[in-house]
């Protein structure tokens, strides 16, 4: 009870509420603007959150990311261009509805079921995270080693177009994590005498590069940045949503549950959740033939799923320090900066901050309804902001943001290098998220690996001796075995 009151006191601060309003507007704008993503919104927020106490800093990230994922639906429905990759799965469907004169219903479903999915994910987060933390308190380096391995494997396994490219991306991230003094022996590695490299590569600067600079480069290289005029939205947005809720309860729950689960799996976030649930929606629909012709069912399910994933991703991030998606990869960096080291002990040491964080999640998903309505109604104005003006401004923000992390122009150089790497990777079908996961989890993996090897004196059998470690180890090896088998089968020549 004391914790709840303390948390309420932290949230009720006018400053925190002001930050929530401001970051809602920021998230909605970034999400609605094609080419700017939720991850980019979060990465660009970090330099600003540096200067805030923990609760408003986390509130800003939670609110902006949830709003951005919803707002990605707006240009999807009105221009057939998804605002963020998380809306891509059902963009054609939403646009087909707009062409049928049902833009209001499509966008209304976007906002209402995003909020419901987000709240569902939050309820799971609030109940699952503390329970998991109880278990995790008993974990040793062996359990953490397998958990990180399993997490990294998930990232490749789920996000794969090509599993080989996913694995390479992951190992590239781990390679980046080798740089600097942060290793069990505290020996400078891969620093080549450069003092700026001693502290390692900053994850936020790398992310601004890979997620923001790569996009800016893609935009400036495009022949025409101007957006066509969006279709008008004039009717009531919430009309008919209650009927949809009554008609599709199974879809809402299934979308929210799958979304939360995919969010919680490392490396996969809202975009993958929405692709998978759009597919499940069609697979189990009574009217699958209507999909693609402007049918709202898939939007209901995957609209709920992508916002549920935003909340779900926080579960492993808070409990184990393993990010569920690229947004929570940034969050982990922010938590460390705020002296809130993620892990099971955070629930014991800072319960009021955790409760405040959970409250912000609920609040953000509730205010999404009025703010979302406002954003839909102002879609014409938002989408009229010229991208040829916006993109250079985003570039300037990236430069200043990367600089602000450690007040050094070197950080801008890091951002530039990772921007080019991210651009090249995307052009060649390498997923970017595993790189970030590798950078974040590299030090944790190394520490637990070396500690375990020292404890076991080099014997791998010790890695399976404790019950949970054994179970995690066997699961990880089974997944690896499955991947290897699949890989070998793919290598077999196809009979002509």
């Amino acid at each position, binding site marked *: 009870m004391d914790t709840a009151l303390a948390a309420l006191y932290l949230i009720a601060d006018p400053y925190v509420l002001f930050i929530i309003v401001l970051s809602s507007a920021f998230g909605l704008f970034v999400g609605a603007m094609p080419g700017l993503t939720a991850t980019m919104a979060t990465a660009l927020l970090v*330099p*600003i959150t*540096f*200067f805030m106490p923990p609760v408003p800093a986390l509130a800003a990230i939670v609110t902006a990311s949830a709003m951005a994922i919803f707002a990605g639906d707006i240009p999807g429905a009105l221009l057939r261009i998804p605002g963020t990759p998380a809306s891509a799965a059902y963009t054609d469907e939403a646009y087909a509805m707009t062409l049928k004169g049902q833009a209001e219903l499509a966008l209304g479903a976007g906002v209402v079921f995003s909020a419901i999915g987000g709240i569902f994910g939050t309820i799971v987060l609030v109940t699952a995270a503390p329970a998991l933390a109880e278990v995790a308190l008993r974990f040793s380096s062996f359990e953490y080693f397998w958990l990180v391995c399993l997490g990294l494997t998930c990232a490749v396994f789920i996000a794969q177009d090509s599993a*080989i*490219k996913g*694995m*390479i991306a992951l*190992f*590239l991230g*781990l*390679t980046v994590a*080798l740089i600097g003094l942060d290793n*069990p*022996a505290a*020996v400078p*590695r*891969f620093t080549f005498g450069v003092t700026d490299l001693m502290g390692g590569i900053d994850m936020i600067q790398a992310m601004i590069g890979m997620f923001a*600079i790569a996009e*800016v*480069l893609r935009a*400036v*290289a*495009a*022949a025409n*940045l101007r957006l066509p005029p969006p279709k008008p939205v004039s009717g009531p947005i919430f009309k008919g949503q209650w009927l949809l809720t009554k008609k599709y309860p199974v879809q809402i729950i299934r979308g929210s549950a799958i979304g939360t689960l995919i969010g919680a799996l490392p490396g996969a976030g809202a975009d993958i959740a929405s692709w998978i649930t759009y597919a499940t929606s069609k697979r189990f629909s009574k009217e699958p033939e209507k999909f693609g012709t402007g049918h709202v069912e898939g939007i209901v399910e995957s609209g709920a799923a992508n916002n549920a994933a935003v909340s779900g991703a926080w579960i492993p991030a808070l409990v184990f320090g393993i990010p569920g998606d690229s947004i929570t990869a940034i969050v982990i960096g922010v938590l460390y900066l705020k002296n809130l080291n993620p892990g099971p002990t955070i629930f014991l040491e800072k319960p009021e901050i955790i409760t405040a964080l959970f409250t912000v999640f609920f609040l953000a998903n509730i205010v999404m309804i009025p703010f979302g309505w406002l954003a839909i109604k102002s879609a014409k104005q938002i989408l009229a902001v*010229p991208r*040829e*003006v916006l*993109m*250079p*401004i985003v*570039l*300037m*923000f990236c*430069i*200043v943001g990367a*600089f*602000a992390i450690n*007040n050094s*122009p*070197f950080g*801008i*150089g890091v951002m*530039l290098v990772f*921007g*080019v790497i991210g651009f*090249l990777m995307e*052009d*060649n079908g390498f997923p970017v998220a595993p790189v970030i996961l590798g950078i974040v989890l590299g030090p944790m*993996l*190394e520490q637990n*690996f*070396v500690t375990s*090897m*020292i404890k076991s*004196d*080099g014997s791998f059998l010790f890695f399976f001796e404790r019950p949970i470690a054994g179970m995690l180890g066997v699961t990880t090896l089974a997944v690896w075995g499955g991947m290897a088998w699949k*890989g070998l089968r793919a*290598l077999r020549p196809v009979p002509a």
Partner: protein
Amino acid sequence: MKINDLVAGVVLFALAVLILVYAQTLPPMPGQRYGAAAFPTVVALGLGGFSLMLAGQGWRERRPDTRWIEFSAWAHERHTRGNFVIALVLIAVYVLLSERIGFIPLSIAILVFLFLRQGVPLRRGVTIAVATTLAIQLAFSDVLRVPLPRGLLTEILW
């Protein structure tokens, strides 16, 4: 820019070999068998293994007309190629010159340049560039206390 899997695999394999060789030069932890070299070795082996698989895949899928490196549409067009290179160069220029010239003049110059490239009229471009720069300066330098480089304007403004 599409790089053929065979080329990418070979380049990444070379990187893995370099990491492996470098890792063996790292000093051991006194009294321990596993130290600074253990993890880089594992990473190098993993990266090397998967790079070889990628190269193998590229080799199997090669055709007589396979191009090792293929440029995308924007790279063939002079204007868009220019935009891409200019964006990279401008960031590099900022890294090298920001301490000397300062945030305000460099930011205005970079923004105006990029706006003009994107077809924004000069007057409008200059106005937005100045307004944006001053807003960033105010927000980051004055409110958030980020020491944006002052450069040439140190004597004049501060």
